[in-house]
């Protein structure tokens, strides 16, 4: 199982050909209290780097982009009732959706945990 991060602060954890996607703990800190998440419908084809979801804090709405291409196979229904899961567990229970990867080689262009940590520190 590998976890990869994007420069836009999404993560994808891959098991077989299924990727689970969310926003990083760093991103949830920056967003503040999440009050609503708009998730993609099951069956939708997502393209890497394109809009996949929207996360809304008290103050503003922010786009979430697909870290890799693929077909959405599940959305996290728990976020509808409790969007604050994104703050409480951004990289665990606060996942956004799962997709079936259509081009696993896209993962090679993403950052590993150590590289992402260095990237975030470099931005501060």
């Amino acid at each position, binding site marked *: 199982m590998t976890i990869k991060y994007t420069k836009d602060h999404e993560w994808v954890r891959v098991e077989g050909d299924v990727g689970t996607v969310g926003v990083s703990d760093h991103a949830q800190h920056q967003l*503040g209290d999440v009050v609503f998440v708009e998730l993609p419908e099951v069956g939708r084809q997502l393209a890497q780097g394109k809009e996949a979801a*929207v996360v*809304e804090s008290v103050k503003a*709405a922010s786009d979430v982009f697909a870290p890799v291409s693929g077909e959405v196979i599940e959305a996290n229904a728990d976020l509808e009732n409790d969007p604050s899961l994104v703050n409480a567990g951004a990289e665990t229970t606060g996942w956004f959706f799962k997709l079936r990867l259509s081009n696993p080689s896209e993962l090679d262009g993403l950052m590993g945990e150590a590289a992402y940590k260095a990237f975030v520190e470099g931005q501060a």
Partner: protein
Amino acid sequence: MTEASETLKTTPLHSLHLELKGKMVPFAGYDMPVQYPLGILKEHQHTRAKAGLFDVSHMGQVRLTGEDPAAALESLVPGDIKGLARGRMRYTLFLNEQGGILDDLMVTNAGDHLFLVVNAARKDHDVAHMRERLKGKAEVELLDDLALMALQGPEAAAVLGRFIPEAATMKFMSYLPATFNGIPVIITRSGYTGEDGYEISCDKSDAETIARALLAEDEVEAIGLGARDSLRLEAGLCLYGHDIDETTTPVEAGLEWALSKRRREEGGFPGYAIIKDQLANGAPRRRVGLQPEGRQPAREHTDVCDADGHKIGEVTSGGFGPTASAPVAMGYVDRAHAAVGTPVQLMVRGKPLAAKVAAMPFVPQRYYRG
């Protein structure tokens, strides 16, 4: 986030904001805290439950003096300023010749002068406007050696009463020169949250001492501009430049209560003919509350459509109301759709979100009524 920091102005509490780990953002030319580590949601809820301290030193504090500054000011605003008793304050509006709103402000009769508080982004405009239009009738002094703080919430009176016993029994919308631990201050019982509370004006060199004394009280937390915005939105209060501006009249904005009876009859303020007509015949559009169904917020500039999808207006402020525990918004709609309960659609990211025209405030105002 550091691109413009060299050109931004700072308030006398700037170093305290940094010490409290405020997340600083540019606002009206100032480097201001949008939130502290508590976060907007909890800062909002804390203010409604106990008391919040806000730095509003970026706002303009102005002294108006002269032979009859109230009569002079009445030539620019539609409020009854001459009828304002000593020690009392009132909300009013600078208007242009079309009846559009140049700024909204608080005016206090401070005895030998009028004390005005105007918006940060408009203070230079307002001072120039008054100096030009009131030339020979009133002297206009921008008091930029002063700081301004707001202490807001149901515990505000108990907290401030420990330092200034007379504060606890002050009337809503009144003014009192006092001392705070020996420091001269001017307090008013007013605010921008819908809660009971005060604004405290003092010399900028005393601001940090007073802020630290208030923050040391158990009930008080520092609150940033983010919660200030969500608090005022739930209270149905306008934000200048968003909900009201030079293109909106007081009647369109639903601020008829700021048009005093005598002034409606006598006129003598800019845009009177237009406003008199709108008072008699209605305005073409109205500012209304908008309550989306479900949890999804609708933000500023979202189109408002009727049931058939025709555009009837636009959201001017919108977000999530932590106390309402629901999305809340306000905006302008054509008069035919302005009745409370009218179903509308808000076009959020290209998709219609069902909503209704709603009564404001979204959260009941809890001002002190003695």
